[in-house]
Structure formats: structure tokens, C-alpha cells
């Protein structure tokens, strides 16, 4: 292989057009100016960063400097070098594709004794082994069981505020809402509950009236049955729970049945009552799956 510049089309450059730019003082001035600006900006950036200066100073220096350098590079190359148009041959496929039998073998050494069965057993073992290397995926998490379908709510668990304080029915004003959790299980995602005191009076079926306290205090799961966002908005006058993510709307006075939006299931209602000390308690876990339906 010759290293000389020459006729070898794979090493040299086949030129079909050249444009030599005329010398231009304006261009040289631009390159010099841009280079100086870029240099100054580089220094300001470095010094500014080291001194802990305001971000606007070293940030702008970085931006302006890079852009000035870009202008300088482009202008320099445009003026210092000719604009060349060259050609390079592509690898041309054969006009007639060679047939499989006539093609050169990829490897030169062929097997001398054909052992098909033995070969297949070997390949089979290797394949099995390869597949088995995928099994560590099973260690990535515990078997789901029903962990994802259960919540921390159970009979006798008090409803507490995010600060852990148990609630009495009177703590929630008419037309008021509160996010509540099971006692000792604050911020366990599946167990988020929104407590609502309806402003339009007593709820109607399919709300379970046995789980309603004070005739208008009702609790639903806060986990949206569409994609799981917390349903935190409450339109007091309509008694409507509204999910901010995809605008699913639930009628809190009618068992949190969906009235609009991409959700198909109502929010499960929490069985709720009052314990002997007057605090709100759960009467058991939800009777439906909380959150989005699993596949």
C-alpha cells in the first residue's frame, strides 16, 4: 500500500471543482475581533466561576464566547482554505448478484467430520445457558402476591392528618376536604384517603351510607383509578373531585362515580365510622382495588 499522494482513489482526493476565496481584510478583521472576544469571554467565564460570581456573568460569557469562537472558526476556514468539491466512489454492488453456491466462503476452514447431532446438542446447551442468564431478573423485586392490591387500612385504624394527629368529625368544615392516612402509615401511597364533608347535603347511592359519618362526611381513596395521581381538587359547589393529571372527575355525592375523563372506575369508598373516643376510624380495608386497574 503506497503512502504517497497519488492515484489511489481510496487515499487521495478527486477534485471536481475548486473555488479560491479572494483575500479579504474585512474577513480577517472579523476573525481577529471574534477571536479576541472569545478569548476575553473564556477568561471572564473561568474567573467568574472561580470567584463564585453571579451566574448571569459567567453564563453569558460562556454563551457569547462559544458563539464568537464559532464565527471565528467559520470565517477563518472560509477565507484560509479553498472551497473544494470532490468525489469519492461508493462501493458498487455487482450488477448481477453472485449466487449463493458460487460465492466465496466467509471462513476458509471447513469441518472435516460432520457431527450433526453432537453439534446440535452443543448448540442447544449453549442456548439454554444463554437463556438462563436472564433469570437474575427475578431477583429484582419480590413476588407481587397481593402486596400491590392491599392497603394499610383495617378495622379500628384511626384516620390521621399528614402530621399524624387523629381526626374528629367536627374537624372538617362543611364543604371542606382533608387528606388523611392510616395511623402509623402516613405517606404509604396506596392508603391515601381524601375526606370530604359534602356541601350539597347527604350523599346518594351508590355511596354506601353505612360508611358515612354525620350524614355528610364521606371518605374515598385518593389514588385516581386512571393512572394513580392523587385526586386533590374539590369543587365545593358541585361536590366534584377532580384529578389534576388528566381531568378525571368523580361525583363525591354519588359514590365517587366518574362523570368525565378517561377513568372507568369509581374511587373506592373507605368504610368509615367513629370509635368510642369520638375519633374517625376505618371499619375495614377497601372492598375494591385501589388505584388504576392492574392488567
Amino acid at each position, binding site marked *: 500500500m503506497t503512502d504517497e499522494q497519488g492515484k489511489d482513489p481510496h487515499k487521495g482526493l478527486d477534485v471536481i471543482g475548486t473555488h479560491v476565496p479572494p483575500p479579504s481584510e474585512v474577513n480577517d478583521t472579523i476573525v481577529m475581533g471574534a477571536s479576541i472576544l472569545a478569548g476575553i469571554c473564556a477568561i471572564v467565564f473561568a474567573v467568574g466561576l472561580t470567584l463564585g460570581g453571579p451566574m448571569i456573568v459567567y453564563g453569558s460569557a460562556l454563551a457569547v464566547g462559544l458563539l464568537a469562537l*464559532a464565527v471565528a472558526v467559520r470565517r477563518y476556514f472560509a477565507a484560509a482554505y479553498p472551497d473544494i468539491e470532490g468525489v469519492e466512489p461508493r462501493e458498487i454492488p455487482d450488477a448481477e448478484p453472485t449466487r449463493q453456491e458460487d460465492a466465496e466462503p466467509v471462513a476458509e476452514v471447513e469441518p472435516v467430520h460432520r457431527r450433526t447431532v453432537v453439534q446440535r446438542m452443543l448448540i442447544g446447551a449453549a442456548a439454554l445457558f444463554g437463556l438462563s442468564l436472564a433469570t437474575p431478573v427475578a431477583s429484582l423485586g419480590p413476588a407481587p402476591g397481593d402486596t400491590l392490591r392491599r392497603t394499610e387500612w383495617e378495622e379500628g385504624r384511626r384516620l390521621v392528618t399528614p402530621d399524624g394527629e387523629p381526626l374528629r368529625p367536627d374537624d372538617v368544615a362543611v364543604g371542606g376536604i382533608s387528606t388523611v392516612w392510616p395511623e402509623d402509615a402516613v405517606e404509604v401511597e396506596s392508603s391515601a384517603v381524601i375526606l370530604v364533608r359534602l356541601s350539597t347535603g347527604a350523599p346518594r347511592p351508590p355511596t354506601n351510607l353505612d360508611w358515612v359519618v354525620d350524614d355528610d362526611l364521606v371518605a374515598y381513596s385518593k389514588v385516581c383509578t386512571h393512572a394513580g395521581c392523587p385526586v386533590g381538587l374539590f369543587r365545593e359547589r358541585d361536590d366534584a373531585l377532580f384529578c389534576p393529571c388528566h381531568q378525571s372527575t368523580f361525583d363525591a355525592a354519588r359514590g365517587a362515580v366518574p362523570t368525565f375523563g*378517561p377513568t372507568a372506575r369509581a374511587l373506592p369508598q373507605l368504610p368509615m365510622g367513629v370509635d368510642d373516643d369520638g375519633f374517625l376510624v376505618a371499619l375495614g380495608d377497601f372492598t375494591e382495588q385501589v388505584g388504576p386497574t392492574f392488567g
Partner: protein
Amino acid sequence: MTPLFRFVFDTLDARLRLRGPAREVLNKVFPKHWSFLLGEVALFSFVILVLTGIFLAMFYRPSDDPIVYTGSAELFRGRTLPGAYASIVELSHDVTGGLLFRRIHRGAAYLFVASALAHLLRILLTGAFRRPREVNTHIGTTLLILVIALAYTGQNLVFDLLAGSSLRIGYATLGSVPLIGESLIMAVFGGAYPGQVVPRFFALHVLILPAMLAGLLTLHLVLVARQRHTQFPVKGVDAQRYVVGAPLWPSQFAASTTLALVVGGVLAAFAVLVPWSDFDLHGPLVVGHASNAGHAEWWLFYVQGAITLFPAFDWFFPGFAVTHMFVFGTVLPLGLFGLLYAYPFIERRLADYDADIDNHLCSRPLDVPVRAGLVFAMTTFVTVLTVATTNDVLARGLRVPVEAVMWTFRVGVVALPLLVGWAAYARARAQVRRRQAAKPATVEPSTKVPA
């Protein structure tokens, strides 16, 4: 060559025999067109992401265990925050350059996704995916998936209130897969929400996904070098046989260097002007709470639009369920990517040119009517879904109930893609017919290799 460079080169050449390969590389010819630079924009965004990412990784704490923040930020001083969020608050407020590099990193991520999509559109519309480049096209589609995975894991590492909703919806999407949903959740999250997501996403975002991306990207570029670039027809040269353009040195080197500097400069400028990744007011992820007016990141808007727009259903079967979230959150996006993978083969079937010969020419977007119709229709479909996500902003701006906006988009998402696709197809067909009528019959169309 400057004397120093010459000395270094000669020294290395004496030991490594560089001269030959160097000549071959530097004299390589690159066709010139603005749309060929889109892939390079993506490449330079990736480089900037890696550089800024290395800086950010020096400060990030990959755990959600609570710590007390004692830095300078007024809104958090003395409060208990998840470790990951606290480390980023420290980086933004107490480390010089922290906020600037965070913003550049986020801006570069957005630009990476945007330029990858623009590059994909260029490949589709100019037919650069045709034989022999189907393999490289598939590698490119896989790269796009990796880019989106990187963006998703990166966004959620911040562990703020928006990330909370984003993760919860990802969790619901996994769970909606029939039969294996809950196992998928356990495999990815390692437990009930939020699970082990912070350290796992950290490993994915910083190690696994960048390594896969870098490897595939190298393969992608090697294949482009080997198969050489496609190019538009050029007067006087048979572009099927020869690549015509400017050599790597000096022209393409100058262009690429300029582009790299411009990408850096523009990202830095935007980082100063636009608070890309500021999140003090979002606050950390708090289980059980979400904010109004929260959305996914823009490159997921089409998925959010899909799971918002279409009417609700949950189909129950013995032993499993097919839910709205599964169909529109999983099947639809996978279907779109499946279409992308399948498209070279779809066009082979439907187009009227000879698809069994190598093609190195770029066509114009309306040259192949079937392609114009399909690409325009699908792009419109994804765009309508994307814009549909902004329904709450539109409702507020126009003082119209959000339900009315949703219904408008429900109609639009079916009607507009069909209309636009059909219009593109009809116009392309008319244009092709006009051009064929004007050409003399003996001339072969530019997509064939002369015998």
C-alpha cells in the same frame, strides 16, 4: 500543520503508521445540505450531556432517604428533604456553576430529543432508510428509544413533585400490562411506589443507558462511514455511484466544529435566559400529593394526550384485564415505534419504484406519494396528541371549560391526520404525475442505477 502538531504527528506516525489511515479519513467526502447536520446536532448535544452530566454526578445523592438541608436556599433551610432532592438543591444554590450546568444539561437533553426526532423525520422524508440502509435505520430507531429512556430516568432522578406524578403514571403503565403487570412493577420499582426507583434510575441513567447509547451510536456512525452518506441529486455526476461533496479537511471539520460551538453557545445562552430545570417551587416528591397544571415532559406529551383524550374503559376477562392505560399508555406508543421499525418494509410493499436495488439518493418529501401520505398523517396524529396535553392551559387561556377543549381534540385527533395525510398524498401524486408528463420518456427516474 503547526510545527508542534507536525512533531507530534510524526512521532506517533513512526510508531502507529497513522499516515495512511489519516489521509483516508481526512480526504473523505461529505455531501453538503443543512438537513444532514441534524444528526450532528444530536451528537453534540449528547457530548454536552455527558460532560455536564459528569459534573452533576459528582454532587447527586442517589437515595431518597431523608436528610436535613442546611444550605443557603431560603425555602428549604432547616427542612427535611429526600436526599436526592436535597443534593440537587445544594447543587443549584450552594455550588458555583451548579445551576448553570443543570440548566445546560436539561436544555441539551431537550435538544437531544428534538434533534433526534428532526433527524428521524429527515430520514423518513428523504427516503434515506431504503436499501442498503435499513439496518442503520433500525439502529437509529433504537437509539431514539434509548434517548427517551435516558430523558425519562433523568427527569425522575430530580425527585420533585412533578417527578412524583411522572413516576406514578409510569408505575400505572407497567401495572396495566395484562398478566405480568404487577411483576413488572416489582422488577422495575423493587416494591410498592415509590420503591427503589431512585438508585435504580441512577444506575440506568448514569451507567447502563449511556453505555448502550454510546455503543449503538458508534455502530450507527461506523455504518454511515462504511455505507457513505446519501445525497441529493447533483448536476453532472451520477450520485448513485459517487459521493459528491466537500472533504473532511478542511470543510466538514470547519462545519462540524462551528456547529459544535454553536450548539454549546446556544444552550448556554438559553440556560441564562430560560429556567429550564429550576424546581424550588415544585418542592420534593410528597407521596399522596400532586400539583395542578402539572404535565409530563414535552416528548411524552403525545402519550399524556392519548391517555387523556380517549374515552374510558376497563375490559375485564377471566384472570386479567385490558385497561385504558394499557391500550393508550403502552400499546399506542409501542405501536408507533413498531410502525417506525416496520416502515422500510411497508414502503417496499407499497411504493412503485424498484426497492431491490441499492439507493443512495435523497428524494424530496413529496416524491413518493404513499410515503408523503403516511408520514404526514402519523406526524399530524402525534402532533395533535401532543397539543391535546395542553388542554388545561388552552382552557384557561380561552376561558372555555376544559371539557369543551377535550371534545374538540377528540374530534381533531381522528379528523386531522386523515385530512392532512390525504392532502399530502393527493398533492404528491399530482406533483409526480406533472413531473413525469414533463420529462422525456427515455430518461430514467433518478432513483434507478443506470445499467
